[in-house]
């Protein structure tokens, strides 16, 4: 395996909201061109960890470096050209068109008072095609269904053309067809173009099918951090999620799949 460039390096990270600790002693590294899954039960600190990586929250202690430079030494604009976020919730009260919203992803690349350049327009068109929303482009976003809206938000993040994409349960509102289609698109970008993805995912089978590595959070700490092939065990599922399950490894496919025991 080739040595990959290290993007994020997180050391002894702690965070708390007021007096409630949310994350403790988090240390890990993220490398370029990999698809990372972030899993854990509700309230285990996944979204907070993603916000810390996006620098929309500041750590209480510990350090986060991005490309050997402290994350808080980057300006917002610099970060916006490098990291894109697809949030969990998105709503809009104003009647912007789908195309306008996707174009907003180009905001950090377009100087104030300038019009978008041809390559900005091209990035928007490509992102909309990728997310299969070109036919919606002249509709106001407030008239879209939840799933359509989520694809718009995803297209906006793709149009941002960053080297890192952070997904906070970005496929939770989508039907299975679009979920798989989108995960495939992102997987291809990771494998072919060296995009780095960090995705908080609730659907463990989805994580198992598409991620390279998984970070597992349990009670504010990292419980495990390993390649997806050997991370899923009945033991882990019992410890982290308190569920009973069996792990199957299909022979033609190296990805493990989880069979929950519902009874």
């Amino acid at each position: 395996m080739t040595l990959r460039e290290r993007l994020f390096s997180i050391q002894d990270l702690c965070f708390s909201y007021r007096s409630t600790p949310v994350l403790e002693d988090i240390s890990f590294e993220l490398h370029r061109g990999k698809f990372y899954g972030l899993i854990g039960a509700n309230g285990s600190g996944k979204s907070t960890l993603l916000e810390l990586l996006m620098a929309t929250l500041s750590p209480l202690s510990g350090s986060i470096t991005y490309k050997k430079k402290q994350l808080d030494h980057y300006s917002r604009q610099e970060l916006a050209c490098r990291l894109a976020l697809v949030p969990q919730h998105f709503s809009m009260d104003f009647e912007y068109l789908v195309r306008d919203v996707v174009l907003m992803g180009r905001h950090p690349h377009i100087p104030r008072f300038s019009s978008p350049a041809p390559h900005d327009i091209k990035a928007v068109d490509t992102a909309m095609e990728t997310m299969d929303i070109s036919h919606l482009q002249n509709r106001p976003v407030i008239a879209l269904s939840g799933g359509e809206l989520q694809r718009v938000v995803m297209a906006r993040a793709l149009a941002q053309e960053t080297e890192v994409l952070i997904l906070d349960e970005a496929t939770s509102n989508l039907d299975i067809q679009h979920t798989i289609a989108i995960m495939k698109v992102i997987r291809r970008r990771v494998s072919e173009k060296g995009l780095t993805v960090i995705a908080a995912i609730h659907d463990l089978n989805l994580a198992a099918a598409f991620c390279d590595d998984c970070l597992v959070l349990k009670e504010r700490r990292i419980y495990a951090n390993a390649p997806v092939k050997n991370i899923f065990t009945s033991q882990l599922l019992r410890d982290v999620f308190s569920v009973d399950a069996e792990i199957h490894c299909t022979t033609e496919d190296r990805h493990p799949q989880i069979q929950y025991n519902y009874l």
Partner: protein
Amino acid sequence: MSLKWTHPIQLYEMTATKPLLSLFLLSIILCAAIIAATGMGFLKISPAEVIQILWSRLLGEQAQAINPTFPFVVMEVRLPRILTAALVGGGLAVAGAVFQAILLNPLADPYTLGISSGAAFGASLAIILSIFGIMIPAWLSIPIFAFIGAMATLVGVFSLASSDNRLSSNTLILSGVIIAAILSAGIGFIKYLADEQVSIIIFWLMGSFVGRTWVDVLSTALVVIPGLFFTLYFARDLNIMALGERTANTLGVDSSRVKKTLLVAASLITAICVSVSGIIGFVGLIIPHLLRMILGPDNRILLPACFLGGATLLLGADTITRAWLPSEIPIGVLTSLIGGPFFCYIFRKKQLALTS
């Protein structure tokens, strides 16, 4: 079901003709309205004569009007009032649009944070002091007290809301409501103290442009026009902030700084408007709404359009009460009386279009 979305402007990609054309049209309408309004009233002056008087005054010549009183009527009586009305209308509409964009709430208006109550309290205080013979002259103290009252309210609302670092819109709106409620009680107490002379306070609160001078024009213009350009500078950030604060931050916008700066700017604009004219409702709510329906939500077009549209609307309303109605009714009452039903009509039509 096929919905036809007629949406005239595409953000960013606009070829710059359509929005600029609409701004140009709005400017023409405003200019025409100013000239027409100047000619209307007890003394009828034709638009040609108005233009002639303005032109000769601009060149510094003695106007060669048919009637020697016309230049005085135009320059000293009507124009100051008309320009004040236009500036106040424009200012309130711009402030309304900014509040709506920042608070992500289409129902916000310039008075959402209680600025109007602060101004009203200040003005009532000045009036009651002059009734008791402590403060003279009232024409000077009322606008100054109103302005101070409005700014003090802003400080109060901000310090109440500051426990929430992100200044979320719910916290801000709630703080505004609380402070406004306290101030309303204060105004009620002052009204009670004013006893028989309470009508002075009530009339001030209902708003009026009677007897405005060039001093009013100048002081309003000095805040409203720089305010417009200042908010325009942040117009694109405001667009991005419609995505929500967290997402806007990840797109390179410092949301909480933009929010604070623009709240102060919009409040300043509101404060000066209220202090020269009293409380005029609806302009700040209806104009941004109406124009957003026509021009789309892009603040870079919406803000200047609101200035022009608000100016035209309030000038029109003021001209109706000044020149058409047998006796002047307070402008604030008139705008709400006309604006309210009109807004109901537009709103209903739009809801029907969305559900059909």
